[in-house]
């Protein structure tokens, strides 16, 4: 017989807050998170001939295409345009890939969750985790291109990892919310794909914000994704503002674009970005943990 009595591992009448219980369980299953991330990367790149090179190639090709297409439109108003675009894409792709994968990962593992206990948020966290690993791989070509285009090194480059951390927390929050919804409604996935494409065009990722009408620029200040993206872009190539010009029907006409040197966001914007990331994460975590008991009936 065993000497010691094992501790209670499950009590359905436990009155603890589910949000805390889930956090403890995720910690206990941290090796599963690591395993799922590496499995995801392996399965995704095992069969493609280029292997891990593909991770970096994908945003690189997008950058080249966008550079050809938009350098004509945006012209010389945005210096180092390819670096500007790639910096934005790195941040955006983490959000888009991470939140979409969170949905499909949770629903796709429903058959496992129907058969054995695993804290379900593990699948959301690991989806965002593999998007984060992909991001790290794309940071390498970003630095390489920046050096190749002779973008002067500036200490503000070091702010980019901070922006990445913020967008990771934000993406976790959105991923938790959207994956909870997709468990209950199977049309959420398609709806979200449409929404995120629209959101991509509305967020200044591959164009500088000063080409937008003034009223839209004022709204963008409340778009957390714009704040994360522009923080990374401003940190590496600086920002572009329009000076002079006259307001004609809410649009500046005739001003000249001036490029400001690389900088990090001011304290107020930093606070807003951290706060919005944590707020969305908290909402997502509470929503997810409050409803997860019902998941098993819907998978």
């Amino acid at each position, binding site marked *: 017989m065993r000497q010691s009595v094992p501790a209670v591992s499950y009590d359905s009448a436990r009155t603890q807050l589910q949000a805390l219980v889930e956090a403890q369980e995720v910690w206990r299953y941290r090796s599963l998170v690591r395993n799922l991330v590496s499995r995801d990367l392996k399965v995704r790149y095992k069969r493609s001939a280029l292997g891990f090179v593909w991770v970096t190639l994908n945003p690189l090709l997008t950058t080249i295409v966008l550079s050809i297409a938009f350098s004509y439109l945006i012209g010389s108003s945005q210096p180092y345009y390819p670096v500007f675009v790639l910096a934005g894409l790195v941040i955006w792709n983490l959000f888009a890939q991470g939140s979409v994968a969170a949905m499909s990962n949770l629903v796709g593992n429903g058959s496992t969750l*129907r058969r054995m206990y695993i804290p379900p948020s593990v699948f959301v966290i690991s989806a965002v985790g593999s998007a984060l690993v992909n991001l790290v791989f794309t940071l390498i070509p970003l630095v390489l291109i920046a050096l190749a285009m002779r973008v002067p090194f500036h200490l503000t480059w070091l702010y980019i990892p901070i922006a990445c951390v913020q967008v990771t927390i934000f993406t976790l929050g959105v991923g938790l919310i959207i994956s909870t919804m997709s468990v209950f*409604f199977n049309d959420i996935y398609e709806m979200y794909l449409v929404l995120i494409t629209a959101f991509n065009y509305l967020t200044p990722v591959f164009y500088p914000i000063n080409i937008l009408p003034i009223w839209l620029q004022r709204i963008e200040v409340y778009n957390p994704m714009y704040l994360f993206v522009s923080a990374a872009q401003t940190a590496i190539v600086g920002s572009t503002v329009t000076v002079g010009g006259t307001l004609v029907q809410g649009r500046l006409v005739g001003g000249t674009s001036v490029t400001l040197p690389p900088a990090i966001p001011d304290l107020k914007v930093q606070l807003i970005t951290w706060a919005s990331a944590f707020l969305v994460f908290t909402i997502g975590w509470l929503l997810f943990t409050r409803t997860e008991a019902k998941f*098993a009936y819907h998978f």
Partner: protein
Amino acid sequence: MLTTSNSSDSPDSPRENGANGGHGANGAHGGSERKLSGNATFGARGNRFGAAATQAGRGAPTLEPSSDDAILVSGVSLRYRMPTERISSLKEQVIRTITRRTVGYNEFWALRNINLRIKFGDSVALVGRNGAGKSSLLKVIARVIAPTSGRVVVRGNVAPIIELGAGFHPELTGRENIFLNGAMLGFSEPAMKRKFDSIVDFSELEAFIDSPIRTYSSGMTARLAFAIAAEADPDLLIVDEVLSVGDEAFQKKCETRMVRFRERGCTILYVTHALDMAYKLCERAVWIEEGRAIYSGPTPKVVNLFRESMEFESSLSATQKRQVVKVER
């Protein structure tokens, strides 16, 4: 040791038809008012829809947990609600909310006031016909589904083998799946590394360990699943009728292994239709029928009773069966 307080529900307590919409014959269902002796006192009848669960949840469960229980199942009921019309898209939900059309549910009580106490080192077989609720009970114990009412307490770490291939990824190799599955059972990577060789040994899959799982036969998958669960050294092993796909030699091996488990003080919960296996492996058995634990005791006794009832039933003609059901009600 194992105790169940058998439920003796009133004849009109919920059957499969369940309550649709407003009328709730389910008031009598709650596990709350049941006394330890097994004498049932029934709650107020004619509760409104949905009151059954709340009522059952409020009352004190029948059995109190003690420190030498591996598993305590106390007044557990599990209700599945199947909407009469399935709403699976947000669009439909929005339209319904706007037009204020509500949906009725067909209720199905998969478990009804189950009381079960399993001590450390017990090995218990669950027997019963298809759809009796055996697997639902395992899922409630394995924490996959929360009970609608009642309480489940489990001590120690659990290795469930509830369905074949759960937690395996078809594209990954056997080797990779051992680590993945181990992590899904809550074991760390170093721990799995230590156990890796003995898992491969036990599963006898050395030659195929680097081939993707999708190339495995169901027998091979079962062997791998059992080997992982066995080597994981859990306090509680839950096995749901997956070993039947393995060949005789492997079944023999699993049997020996489970006997060794028992000797070490590991608790085993075993669902099977192969009653001979139940004889060999488990000292105790519980007979589950229509979501109730109707009989529990030493395996030979329970299994014989169950067998007789099955034989009696199969000897009846269809008309006779209908008459029996009528009399029962």
